[in-house]
């Protein structure tokens, strides 16, 4: 029997029973049928580490740390028996999570005892993409990598090295070891996942309030006190399940109202009082239509605006003069005008309202302006900087970053692009300058848009180094595959999260085989270039020292020491904390407050000291892009109706202009908003929305854990029954989805809870995964269609067509 046959019974569409009778006799029949089917299949069943242990040894101690996987950053207890990790549970005394943990936080233990972990450095012996390797010693590998990097630097310059840090990396890698190495080596082309994920959110916050994280906290006394929750493009229930548990619990206890705007009736929408289905990529129009109603109906909070906001009068005039009425917005975002008015009034009249934005706002060519439009909506209503009132959108968070001492690093010039996918064309063509080497501590061959072109690019490179936990698709294209550690195998901090919490994770267990931490790698590689005065030998085995000496140097961050983290009951503290003795702040930007640690004593650290919508300076900063601080509506090019879109005035093969929002440290392409109808191929009649899969998965990592595969095995495509019927597609069918950029296959999940003209495909699969390999949805995504300001790619409004495979 082929492996995985018994798993075929657990396709999403089947796992979620097709019967329409809720838990009836029919339900029991179905369950009995599946159980019988499972029983017919013989083992080959994965169970590590549970099967290996049998009855687990009683733990002799508990180490409190944080889960290292996702952006919920839940504190956990690592249960240890001797040198063995036996179990992972939540911290019940924790005020935010109350001991709750999502599935992956618990079965992360399968990472540490997985037979599929990379444990030995390997060197390629076949062609790129073939995946044939031979073992190599660490020192030999590092010597060879250093020699080849030296050659690349001599021939093409330091900037032809690109460094990408993937989703499994904490601050300590992307903003620590990798960032320092890039600075010292002299390449500006070092980036993490932010431009694929949330740089639109962070840069919008930077403009509005002068710092990136949302000002509120996930506590019962802050976000828990809202009377109205509006989720736009944020599927919190599946992406940050524990935070959503807190919010939903407070909602039910307080009788608050929850409205979700999303093309898909997600798990979050399934819990909402109201689901509003919208056209993908048009949330900016919704915000503008709501603002128009607020202004016309006199629902703006003039008192708050006068005290704390600059540029709001100009915004009001702009929205009115542009006639961004609810009727106009209705045509753009496909939501009835009456609903937009009602939503606007409910929002403005709520005593305390919170807007949760997410990737549904960020991952579009208008991500930056869409985020700002919702900021403006909140500011007009005075819902900002109060407990239970504000705008939240997860992003890179606090400024925790290592920098080389002044004068130590060579001048670097601007990065080719802010987004790593902006390197792809330069890798292929050498224009505007060549990228010849890539060090990746992540899996671009699932994560990056432009998959077909990226494969060509990787073949063109002189050197590809891959450092990961598991052999993802990118490994096959690497010259050197290096085994790395996870947080509990080395000591690390948690991920950036919505809640400004920074948590320390102690080293609990030894890494498997010869796996070494990212920091170890950067230190060793740096030593070969004479960087060991900065990337010091001692950091290799003492990440806490690295954190305390290198990572908390930014203003407001000095108090985020490992000592303070270790002293707190759940091992996390909430920043900013300017000096070690300073208190944590639950809600920032409360009227009359001074921003923690701001030397100028400002309310908020913007140039004006107020929350900024429009200023002369902002006008000057945005003009070079061809945009204005006032949010003129445009959307992605992949629309089925004629709406304004961007014309790019330069290609990725041209230099472009320095990007002012990034302080000129990256180049970008100027744009022009166009209203000329686009010539589109009518064959591509479906709006593809990509996004995070349900809670059991997190990007590439979890696809190597058996329990995540058991819960959500195959890549699926969610299709509305009417669309499916028209195409003769039935639940469980294999479906081919294609467009000009590529083609993928997914299993059909027929479901009413999605916009009729849209389909949804989750991210995170790749074609070399062990259990359910599939080409990533990013094969269909054009890597050129990016927001000129945040450089985020449009991953959620893409025209495709479908057919039964």
């Amino acid at each position, binding site marked *: 029997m082929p492996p995985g046959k018994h798993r075929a019974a657990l396709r999403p569409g089947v796992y979620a029973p097709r019967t329409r009778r809720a838990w009836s*006799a029919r339900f029991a029949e179905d369950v009995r049928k599946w159980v019988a089917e499972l029983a017919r299949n013989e083992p080959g069943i994965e169970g590590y580490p549970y099967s290996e242990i049998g009855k687990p040894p009683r733990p002799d101690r508990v180490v409190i740390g944080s889960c290292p996987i996702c952006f919920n950053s839940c504190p956990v207890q690592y249960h240890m028996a001797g040198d063995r990790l036996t179990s992972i549970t939540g911290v019940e005394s924790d005020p935010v999570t109350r001991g709750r943990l999502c599935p992956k936080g618990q*079965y992360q233990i399968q990472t540490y005892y997985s037979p599929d972990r990379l444990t030995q450095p390997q060197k390629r012996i076949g062609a790129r993409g073939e995946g044939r390797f031979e073992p190599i010693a660490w020192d030999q590998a590092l010597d060879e990598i250093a020699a080849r990097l030296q050659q690349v630097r001599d021939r093409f310059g330091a900037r032809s090295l690109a460094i990408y840090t993937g989703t499994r990396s904490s601050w300590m890698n992307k903003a620590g070891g990798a960032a320092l190495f890039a600075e010292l080596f002299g390449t500006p082309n070092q980036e993490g996942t932010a431009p694929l994920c949330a740089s639109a959110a962070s840069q919008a916050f930077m403009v509005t309030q002068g710092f990136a994280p949302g000002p509120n906290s996930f506590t019962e006394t802050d976000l828990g006190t809202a009377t109205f929750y509006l989720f736009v493009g944020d599927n919190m229930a599946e992406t940050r399940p524990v935070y959503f548990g807190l919010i939903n619990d407070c909602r039910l206890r307080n009788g608050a109202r929850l409205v979700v705007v999303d093309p898909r009736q997600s798990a979050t929408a399934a819990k909402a009082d109201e689901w509003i289905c919208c056209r993908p990529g048009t949330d900016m129009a919704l915000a503008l239509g709501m603002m128009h109603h607020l202004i016309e109906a006199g629902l703006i909070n003039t008192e708050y605006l006068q005290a704390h906001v600059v540029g709001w009068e100009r915004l009001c005039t702009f929205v009115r003069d542009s006639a961004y009425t609810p009727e106009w917005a209705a045509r753009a975002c496909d939501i009835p005008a009456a609903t937009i008015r009602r939503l606007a009034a409910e929002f403005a*009249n709520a005593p305390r309202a919170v807007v949760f934005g997410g990737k549904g706002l960020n991952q579009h060519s208008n991500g930056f302006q869409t985020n700002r439009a919702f900021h403006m909506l909140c500011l007009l209503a005075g819902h900002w900087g109060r407990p239970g009132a504000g705008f939240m959108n997860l992003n890179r968070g606090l400024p925790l970053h290592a920098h080389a001492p002044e004068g130590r690093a060579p001048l670097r010039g601007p990065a080719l692009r802010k987004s790593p996918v902006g390197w792809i064309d330069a890798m292929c063509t050498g224009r505007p300058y060549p990228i010849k080497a890539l060090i990746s501590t992540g899996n671009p061959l699932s994560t990056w848009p432009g998959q077909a072109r990226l494969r060509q690019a990787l073949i063109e490179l002189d050197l590809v180094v891959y450092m990961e936990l598991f052999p993802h698709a990118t490994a096959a294209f690497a010259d050197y595959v290096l085994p790395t550690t996870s947080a509990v195998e080395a000591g690390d901090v948690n991920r950036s999260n919505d809640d400004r919490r920074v948590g320390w994770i102690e080293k609990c267990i030894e890494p498997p085989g010869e796996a070494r931490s990212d920091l170890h790698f950067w230190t060793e590689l740096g030593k070969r270039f004479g960087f060991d005065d900065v990337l010091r030998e001692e950091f290799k085995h003492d990440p806490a020292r690295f954190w305390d000496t290198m990572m908390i140097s930014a203003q407001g961050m000095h108090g985020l020491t490992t000592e303070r983290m270790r002293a707190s009951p759940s091992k996390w503290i909430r920043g900013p904390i300017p000096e070690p003795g300073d208190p944590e702040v639950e809600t920032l930007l409360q009227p009359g407050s001074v921003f923690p640690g701001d030397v100028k004593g400002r309310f908020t650290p913007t140039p004006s000291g107020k929350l900024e919508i429009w200023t002369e300076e902002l006008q000057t900063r945005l003009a070079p892009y061809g945009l204005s601080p006032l949010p003129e509506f445009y959307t992605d090019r992949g629309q089925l109706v004629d709406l304004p879109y961007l014309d790019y005035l330069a290609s990725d093969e041209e230099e472009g202009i320095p990007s002012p929002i990034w302080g000129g440290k990256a180049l970008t392409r100027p744009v022009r908003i166009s209203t000329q109808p686009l010539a589109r191929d009518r064959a591509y009649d479906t709006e593809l929305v990509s996004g995070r899969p349900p809670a059991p998965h997190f990007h590439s990592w979890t696809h190597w854990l058996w329990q995540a595969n058991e819960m959500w095995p195959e890549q699926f495509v969610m299709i509305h029954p009417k669309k499916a019927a028209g195409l003769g597609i039935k639940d469980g069918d294999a479906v081919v989805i294609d467009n000009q950029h590529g083609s993928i296959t997914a299993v059909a999940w027929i479901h009413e809870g999605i916009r009729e003209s849209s389909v949804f495909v989750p991210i995170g699969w790749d074609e070399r995964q062990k259990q359910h390999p599939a080409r990533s949805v990013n094969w269909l995504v054009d890597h050129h269609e990016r927001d000129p300001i945040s450089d985020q790619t449009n991953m959620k409004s893409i025209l495709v067509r479908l057919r039964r495979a």
Partner: protein
Amino acid sequence: MVDNPAADKPLQEPGPEPLVLLIDLERCTGCRACEAACKLENRLGEGMFRNRVFWMPPEDSNGRFEFVVAVCQQCVRPACLRACGAAAISKDPVTGVVEIDSDHCTGCQECVLACPYGAVSFDYRRHKAEKCNLCADRRATGRGGPACAAACPGRAIAFGPRSALIERAHDDGRHVRNVDRFGLGASTVYLERTPPSAVRATGERDDATG
């Protein structure tokens, strides 16, 4: 031949305060953390379950998911107990917990097929039936209630004496769903969803409906 005294004896009535799980369908987000917690605590491999979460698209709801945790109902008259020819399944007279004694289980899987709630699965490694005993080991060693209830991110699973749980739910204005469709005396408590929260009275304005 294996004796089956249970087959001859009248079924034990549960004690005054049976221990049960309460599952709040309004709070469950279908994330499957309870499955992960259960397998971690009880060391279950692939294909083995003591609980499972189903995503069910009910009729007439515009495609809104309903999530249901399928788990042992700790029935008053358990079908599994009746089906077991090896007298390996018992019901605790005080707590009402239905438990499989692995030492006596012969691996015939009759109980797996008998349970209409799909709550009994099979351990292929040891050739034994597997079902929820409300984390007997956690309770016995003072580690609190069942692992699923402790881990649930949605705060949807509660554990305790059945009457107290129902009383508290009624105090909160919640309704209990009747899932006892097979006449077995299913004891796990499921709370119905709540009606959608309307616009708050304090927030209503004349222009609110546009």
